[in-house]
């Protein structure tokens, strides 16, 4: 990714945003499929969760890549936003952004920061307790204390049942994620140099479907657990 | 009055002249080229290609343009194409035929040897441009496509959509960029040449103004090349760019370069008419429209009134009340008569009161019959024998759209009328100036070391330019002619060394320039620059336009002189001399146009014949089938008029270069 005096070139930067974006989208899909299981079968959800939580490949290979992607995508995205704002020192008195570009494409930083805020909540809810149990308390069993089954489904339900504020925050966050993906999906393809008269329209449609269906899936899971308990 | 020598090498047949010249011309050794500086002013097709080629050969080039980038020179606006005698279509084209067409098209007022050379190098231009990545149109086999243009009998015009000038200019610009990157061209954007500096009788530099800071700069060189375009803006309204000007050429003229044939102006028949007094420029519509459009005005004056007041739609005027005046006057050629004939005929009708728009200066160009004709053909091809009138029109419009869609869109954008439904309105406009600085076969002006190329010189188009030949000439001069001829001159300069700018000549020229600029900004008069430019334009258009006569031309000389005097007394130029000041730039250019206009009228007065773009009412055929048509006078006027500056433009001294035609027999044009 040829560099110049200022480090990575502008195209290199956008390609890395796209590649980390691709990985994160893949991760979302995987995360959603596991979450979906919680709606249909608590056993299956528990089994898979335990596998994901203890498998060394997932934990020591995929997880670091994920963490790297998340951090990189956010930090780099914010840095680019800063840099881009520097590219116009005097702002326009009148700027009609809506005349030529979608709200989503112009406000990736807003939707992105909203998702970042959500991640903080999400880590607080799940990831930190998980790390605490597994690596600080050293309990790798995944069992619910005082019971003969895994703890994952219980924990999940516990977070949503009777928690309207948290559920509302989750729903809102996924709306923002959806907006982020509405631009991000197709944009990633353009960034890595893929644009064809034949398939780009297909990618755009696919991207819209992904951007709506995936966040909607997460919302459904949260709502199901909220209403059914 | 003296006779000028065009320095055409003698002793061999015309077709071998250029080859022999190239074989024998003195060359400059590469090591010496590094010690020679050349100034190129103007970066259009001629200047840009010359700067790139000279730099590539090893000279140190300083290139100047008034625009913010060389890519914006007005060559960029040429639409149609570029001629070359490639004979890719196998339709019998050849170097000789291109040469012959160009001389005949120029109404036998160009220098034969120059035109032959132009035809010879035309093929190299296409090779060169393709190698540079110019995306010419291609056919499905991947080979270059051609179209026919300007009523010649072969298809020799290469094109890149309707943007051929743009693509060729960007090609020359890219060649320049390569040399700028190598440090061989030093580029001065937003710089305007304000004087030519002559040391010991040779052009050795220029005084230029940095248009951003207003600073006056001295630049020296061993030779100065002017590729500064034509002077069509002397008419105020023309198809030239707003900034196109004659100042560089005029400065060279004032310093001793003769100005040749200033009265040869091409007035293009198909431009979008003026809509009001605020109009700043005119837009050309490609000549190709006349292939399918029929030109007419109402035959009855009451219908004219009604369409002007929008009480009557042109489409509601029945055919028997229309005057298809070109078809009426020129049954053989009809709507396809040459540019000058079509232009004069439109003016004749409008002067008689039949102009169809609010300003009274417009005629109709109607595609209704072409739409029906194409529609019927399509209906047959598609097997729709019972197609309704509406269906036929629909089919026909598709064909017209495929052929002229972009032009129709452009018309709609400017005129706000749909040309598929209602006839276009068109009117002639000044488009190109064949006259310019007199140059010899080497493209050198009468000032040693000062060269003029492209539209800035006079040499190749005679009294009238054929379509798609301007681009050819600009690039021929810049890529393939000047780089050879200038070597012969510079080979004597290898021991000269760097030219100093700290000499009395530079000092005096700079002082003069500064005084003039300061005079303009300190004048604090009452009238804007545009007031004078518009007033000059009206005189030029009325008295030196499509049709000229002795009385009008004499009046024009007087009126322009008086206007110039008033300008220097009463012009108002806001802002300072040493800052970015567009009004001041314009003032300087208009001041020069006010001199050129007078010389223009004088030249037109002197030439009491009608040839090409120059029509004298006194010189017409009388009686016979050609009654009233232009009459050339080869006996008395087969010469180039080269004017020497002596102070007042109308006191300029005439020098003649006799034109003799060895390879071509002179004939009178007939389109009846």
């Amino acid at each position, binding site marked *: *990714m040829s560099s*110049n005096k*200022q480090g990575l070139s*502008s*195209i*290199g*930067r956008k*390609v890395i945003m796209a590649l980390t974006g691709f990985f994160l989208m893949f991760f979302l899909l995987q995360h959603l499929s596991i979450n979906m299981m919680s709606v249909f079968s608590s056993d299956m959800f528990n089994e898979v969760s335990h596998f994901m939580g203890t498998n060394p490949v997932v934990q020591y290979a995929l997880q670091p890549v994920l963490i790297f992607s998340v951090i990189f995508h956010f930090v780099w995205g914010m840095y*680019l936003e800063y*840099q*881009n704002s520097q590219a*116009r020192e005097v702002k*326009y*008195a009148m*700027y009609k952004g809506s*005349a030529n*570009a*979608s709200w989503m*494409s*112009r406000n*990736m930083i807003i939707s992105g920061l909203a998702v970042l805020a959500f991640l903080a909540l999400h880590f607080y809810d799940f990831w930190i307790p998980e790390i605490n149990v597994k690596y600080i308390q050293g309990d790798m069993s995944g069992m619910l204390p005082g019971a003969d089954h895994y703890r994952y489904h219980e924990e999940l339900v516990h977070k949503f049942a009777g928690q309207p504020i948290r559920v509302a925050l989750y729903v809102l966050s996924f709306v923002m994620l959806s907006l982020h993906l509405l*631009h991000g999906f197709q*944009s990633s393809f*353009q*960034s890595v*140099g*893929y*644009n064809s008269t034949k398939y780009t329209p297909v990618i755009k449609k696919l991207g819209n479907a992904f951007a709506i269906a995936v966040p909607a899936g997460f919302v459904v899971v949260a709502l199901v657990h909220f209403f059914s308990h | 009055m003296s006779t000028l020598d065009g320095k055409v090498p003698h002793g061999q047949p015309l077709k071998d002249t250029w080859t022999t010249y190239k074989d024998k011309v003195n060359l400059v050794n590469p090591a010496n080229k590094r010690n020679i500086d050349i100034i190129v002013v103007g970066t259009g097709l001629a200047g840009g290609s010359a700067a790139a080629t000279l730099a*590539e050969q090893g000279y140190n080039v300083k290139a100047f343009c008034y*625009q913010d980038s060389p*890519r*914006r020179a007005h060559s*960029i606006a040429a639409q149609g194409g570029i001629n070359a005698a490639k004979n890719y279509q196998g339709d019998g084209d050849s170097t000789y035929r291109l040469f012959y067409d160009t001389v005949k098209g120029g109404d036998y007022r160009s220098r034969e040897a120059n035109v032959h050379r132009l035809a010879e190098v035309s093929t*190299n231009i296409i*090779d*060169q441009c*393709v190698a*540079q*990545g110019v*995306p010419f149109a291609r056919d499905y086999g991947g*080979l270059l496509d051609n179209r026919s243009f300007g009523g010649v009998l072969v298809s020799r015009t290469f094109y890149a959509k309707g*943007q051929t000038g743009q693509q060729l200019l960007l090609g020359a*610009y*890219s*060649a320049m*960029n390569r040399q700028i990157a190598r440090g061989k061209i030093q580029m001065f*954007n937003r710089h305007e040449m304000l004087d030519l500096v002559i040391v010991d009788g040779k052009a050795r530099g220029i005084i230029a103004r940095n248009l951003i800071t207003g600073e006056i700069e001295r630049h020296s060189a061993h030779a100065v090349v002017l590729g500064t375009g034509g002077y069509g803006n002397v008419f105020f309204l023309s198809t030239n760019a*707003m900034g196109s000007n004659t100042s560089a050429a005029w400065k060279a003229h004032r310093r001793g370069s003769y100005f040749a044939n200033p009265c040869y102006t091409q007035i293009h028949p198909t431009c979008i008419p003026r*809509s*009001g007094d605020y109009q*700043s420029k005119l*837009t*050309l519509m490609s000549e190709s429209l006349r292939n399918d459009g029929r030109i007419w005005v109402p035959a009855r004056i009451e219908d004219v009134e009604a369409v002007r007041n929008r009480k009557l739609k042109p489409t509601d005027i029945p055919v028997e009340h229309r005057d298809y005046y070109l078809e009426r006057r020129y049954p053989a050629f009809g709507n396809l008569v040459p540019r000058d004939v079509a232009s004069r005929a439109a003016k004749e009708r409008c002067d008689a009161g039949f102009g169809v728009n609010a300003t009274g200066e417009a005629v109709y160009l109607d595609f209704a019959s072409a739409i029906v004709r194409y529609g019927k053909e399509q209906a047959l091809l598609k097997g729709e024998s019972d197609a309704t009138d509406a269906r036929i029109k629909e089919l026909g419009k598709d064909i017209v759209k495929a052929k002229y869609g972009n032009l129709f869109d452009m018309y709609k954008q*400017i005129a*706000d009328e749909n040309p598929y439904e209602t006839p276009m309105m068109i009117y002639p406009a000044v488009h190109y100036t064949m006259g310019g600085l007199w140059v010899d076969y080497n493209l050198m002006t009468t000032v040693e070391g000062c060269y003029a190329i492209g539209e800035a010189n006079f040499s190749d188009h005679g009294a009238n330019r054929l379509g798609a030949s301007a681009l050819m000439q600009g690039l021929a001069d810049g*890529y393939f002619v000047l780089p050879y001829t200038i070597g012969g001159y510079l080979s004597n300069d290898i021991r000269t060394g760097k030219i100093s700018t700290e000499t009395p000549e530079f000092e005096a020229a700079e002082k003069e320039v500064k005084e003039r600029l300061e005079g303009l900004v300190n004048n604090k008069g009452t009238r*804007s620059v545009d007031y004078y430019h518009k007033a000059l334009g009206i005189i030029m258009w009325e008295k030196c336009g499509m049709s000229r006569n002795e009385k009008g031309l004499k009046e024009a000389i007087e009126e322009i002189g008086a206007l110039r005097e008033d300008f220097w007394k009463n012009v108002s130029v*806001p802002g300072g001399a040493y*800052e970015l000041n*567009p009004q001041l730039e314009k003032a300087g250019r208009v001041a020069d146009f006010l001199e050129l206009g007078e010389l223009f009228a004088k030249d037109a007065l002197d030439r009491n014949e009608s040839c090409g773009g120059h029509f004298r009412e006194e010189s017409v055929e009388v009686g016979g089938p050609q009654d009233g048509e232009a009459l050339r006078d080869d006996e008395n006027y087969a010469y180039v008029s080269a004017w020497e500056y002596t102070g007042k433009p109308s006191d300029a001294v005439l020098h003649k270069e006799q034109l003799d035609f060895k390879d071509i027999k002179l004939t009178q044009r007939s389109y009846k």
Partner: protein
Amino acid sequence: MDNMNLTLKIWRQKGANDKGKMVDYNVADISEHMSFLEMMDVLNEQLVNTGEEPVAFDHDCREGICGSCSMFINGEAHGPVKGTTTCQLHMRSFNDGDTIYIEPFRAKAFPVLKDLVVDRSSFDRIQHSGGFISVNTSGNTQDANATPIPKHDADLAMDAAACIGCGACVATCKNSSAMLFVGAKVSQYALLPQGKVEAKDRAQNMVAQMDAEGFGNCTNTGACEVECPKGISLSNIARMNREFLSGSMG
């Protein structure tokens, strides 16, 4: 429609190092057939006649091809009509009583020189870094028809080459990115066999220069394509990304 009276809010700035501000002007009796620049001429004539300094703006051919005219009009590059340069924008796109904002194209890489005039020489410098095919003017390059070029490629190259270098893409981009401009040039040459030879180096060099000039990063909003008066396609940016990446890998 009758003639219009308008309020203009125009950026006035004495020189490159001065502070500028928006200033209000009124123009009366503007015909709908005027081009936007002719309306500016009317204003300037008015200013000259009252002894004020006219508004400086870039313009030249006034037929939509030279790329000189710029102006950010009512929040859009070249004003509200798509596929149009300012010189081809006509006053019929406005209404009597309108207030029109007129600002220079803004980007760090396009510093204002005076009023509405900006310095776009950064575009030239990008071209110097690789916007050419390295061929000498010899008069004996191979015959123009020696290498057939598929019509499809030639047409795509022509579409990319139609760029007029006006800078509307940069002006309109929320990031002031020049990717459409650079992408168009890289694409034109990459699509032609003559230009393929240097295609990878060209992309590397031109992108490096683009970055050095201080243009922003592309975030694929697509605003450039919409505002481009010549309709240059975003696919040119994707093609440049490809050329760049394959140059980086190899």
